[in-house]
């Protein structure tokens, strides 16, 4: 990613007013070595750990040294997101108010111009929630997590919200609790009035007790009374709808934690232990084989609050179990393999899944796995000659199938693969490329603009390739092309050795390592 660093961001766990600037500034360069200024920089805003919206900018705030600076103000998004909340009249419990404050962070993403001239965003693009689907998170360079309150500060006010609020404390307060009101001593009420006093707690406390200090008419002393006024805690952990996957042990039920911090999960279905909840401490649970029919599996997060467990909102998944179908056939005809060329083949099996493999005899380089209704064969052949592929496949049914075939590994045709190293960047030279994975080299270093080295690729190679480059000024891009298609990009800036990420160079293909502007 070409987002380089944060120049300015809110500090961790700081609290901000939604109607004052909340600024994130980053330095960035274009992707794919496209220069100091990306075409677009994106600021993905997350509220309460859920993607809310993206701010995008095409105009940098300034040009830095070898990069550009970009500034985003997320106050408008916070103003949209935050809401008012008025408690019911006469409510006598301490109530956590989630509408007027939110946790926030941003993920920054960059972009570049691809070979076709289109703007290409980097990372995973997040998706907004709709009325029928949840938001999908994306990737990017993440800011600190901070908090935004649905409030404002006047021009004359201290612009740090927490410091401002501390000037409105009357009586005893701890430093990390603040009033969310500017009311002063002498706040007037009638004997039947309803009222709440709003506070902001930075200490993650579980507040439940209050003490009333009161003075009756015609008295000078204050009386005192205490009581617990805590509301029943609620578990705000949210999980995604679970999914169920059949495997050799039964059914694997898995889910994702969307938000919150549950201590554990309860998983239950009527056929397992009479519907008693089974505990899971990670986001999956292995159920045994279930009988034929439809089974409703319920997953419920549990939060541990003040030493007690409180259930969150449950999600369910239906598992439909059909009768076991015996194995009836397995396809045949494994193709021969070429030495050094990746081998990938699958054969279909007819019968219930999951499939089990046993008594396997195979070449050392080959991996055989069962995936759904297919047997997968993969690997990169080593050596030549005939090899046996033998195994037994079984499922929930009685009959098993024995598979036995012979495949031939033929030698890769020598000289079929080529590797060319070309310099197409004015004002530069290629000093060296290591390791030497080719033979029959034609041409020599250093390669000035327009010069090349050619070689034959006889044996396969998998790994990184280091290219030593001298640039007079500016930047460039190292590209690796396979049969004319670009498969790797490396930005080059200044002189030095740059690494092309690990890739497989197979005989039979034409590779080009080229340095471009």
């Amino acid at each position, binding site marked *: 990613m070409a987002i380089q660093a944060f120049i300015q961001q809110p500090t961790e*766990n700081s*609290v901000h*007013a939604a109607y004052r600037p909340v600024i994130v500034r980053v330095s960035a360069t274009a992707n794919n070595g496209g220069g100091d200024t990306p075409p677009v920089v994106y600021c993905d805003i997350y509220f309460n750990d859920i993607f809310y919206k993206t701010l995008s900018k095409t105009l940098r705030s300034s040009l830095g040294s070898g990069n550009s600076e970009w500034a985003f103000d997320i106050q408008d998004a916070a103003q949209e997101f935050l809401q*008012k909340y*008025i408690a*019911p*009249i*006469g409510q*006598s419990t*301490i109530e*956590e*108010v989630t509408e*007027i*404050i939110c946790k926030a962070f941003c993920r920054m993403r960059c972009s570049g111009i691809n070979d076709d001239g289109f703007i290409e965003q980097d990372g995973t693009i997040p998706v907004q929630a709709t009325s029928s689907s949840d938001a999908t998170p994306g990737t990017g360079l993440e800011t600190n997590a901070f*908090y935004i*309150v*649905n*409030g404002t500060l006047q021009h004359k006010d201290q612009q740090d919200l927490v410091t401002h609020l501390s000037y409105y*404390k*009357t*009586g*005893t*307060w*701890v430093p990390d*609790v603040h009033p*969310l*009101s*500017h009311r002063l*001593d*002498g*706040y*007037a*009420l*009638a*004997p*039947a*009035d*309803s*009222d*709440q006093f*709003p*506070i*902001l*707690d*930075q*200490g*993650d*406390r579980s*507040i439940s*007790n*209050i*003490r*009333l*200090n*009161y003075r009756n008419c015609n*008295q000078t002393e204050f*009386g005192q009374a*205490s*009581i617990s*006024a805590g509301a029943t805690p609620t578990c705000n952990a949210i999980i995604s709808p679970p999914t169920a996957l059949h495997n050799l042990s039964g059914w694997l039920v898995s889910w994702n934690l969307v938000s919150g911090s549950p201590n554990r999960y309860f998983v239950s279905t009527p056929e397992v232990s009479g519907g008693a909840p089974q505990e899971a401490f990670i986001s999956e649970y292995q159920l045994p084989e279930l009988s034929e029919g439809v089974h409703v599996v319920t997953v419920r997060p549990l939060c541990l609050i003040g030493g007690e467990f409180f259930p969150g909102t449950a999600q369910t998944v239906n598992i439909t179990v059909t009768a076991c179908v015996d194995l009836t056939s397995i396809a045949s005809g494994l193709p021969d393999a070429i030495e050094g060329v990746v081998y990938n083949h699958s054969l279909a099996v007819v019968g219930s899944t999951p499939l089990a493999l046993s008594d396997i005899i195979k070449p050392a380089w080959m991996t055989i796995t069962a995936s759904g209704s297919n047997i997968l064969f993969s690997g990169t052949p080593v050596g030549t000659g005939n090899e046996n592929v033998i195994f037994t496949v079984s499922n929930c049914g009685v009959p098993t199938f024995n598979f036995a075939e012979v495949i031939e590994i033929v030698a890769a045709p020598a000289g079929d693969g080529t590797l060319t190293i070309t310099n197409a960047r004015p004002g530069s030279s290629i000093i060296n490329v290591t390791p030497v994975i080719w033979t029959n080299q034609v041409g020599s270093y250093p390669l000035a603009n327009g010069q090349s080295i050619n070689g034959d690729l006889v044996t396969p190679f998998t790994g990184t390739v280091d290219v030593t480059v001298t640039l007079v000024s500016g930047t460039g891009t190292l590209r690796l092309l396979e049969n004319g298609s670009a498969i790797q990009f490396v930005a080059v800036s200044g002189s030095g050795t740059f690494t092309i990420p690990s890739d497989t160079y197979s005989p039979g293909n034409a590779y080009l390592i080229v340095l471009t502007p």
Partner: protein
Amino acid sequence: MAVKAYYIPNGPANLAALFPSIDFTQVAEYYVEVMEGDAVIATTPMNRICGCEDDDDCFRIHFLNALGAIDGIDFKMIEKLHEPKSDTFQKPTSYPLVKTDHSVGRFNVKSNDTIRACSVVYNEEHMDWLDELFDSPVAWIELLNVQGQGGTYNPILILDKKNQKVKQEDRYVYQVEIEFKFSHERFIIRN
């Protein structure tokens, strides 16, 4: 770590349920402390009980303050105006004549009450806080036991109005006036 906002019970109606032995009609002033174990972590300002409960013209307005939470102020109504607006239509007199039929009729009737109220319990130091009431985009009037509904809120629309925040004469008595309409106009039948 999470930063959280809480609403602490602070009104007599809220506290009466927690402290049934305390008669708030006899209380002159009080404050509430929020506790963590035996330690005080927050304290409300000193609340004053100002007797207005027996007067039908007294009511409480709750408003969105500048920090996103809700504050409230008691007022005494000093004027209530009912203001209907309508258009008229005219149709021919029917033949044969129906004595009860209208010719010129009224339609598109809209009406609302405009209420003017005042408070005299706050002084000059509270004026900046009172600005938040006059500037608030959202406010409600507290209604108690209207036709057996229990306690409820009725949304109101605060009308723009100038208020004197500092004065030289009678500077220790500040009469704050507010004008508002109900957010929902009266529903008028048509036929």
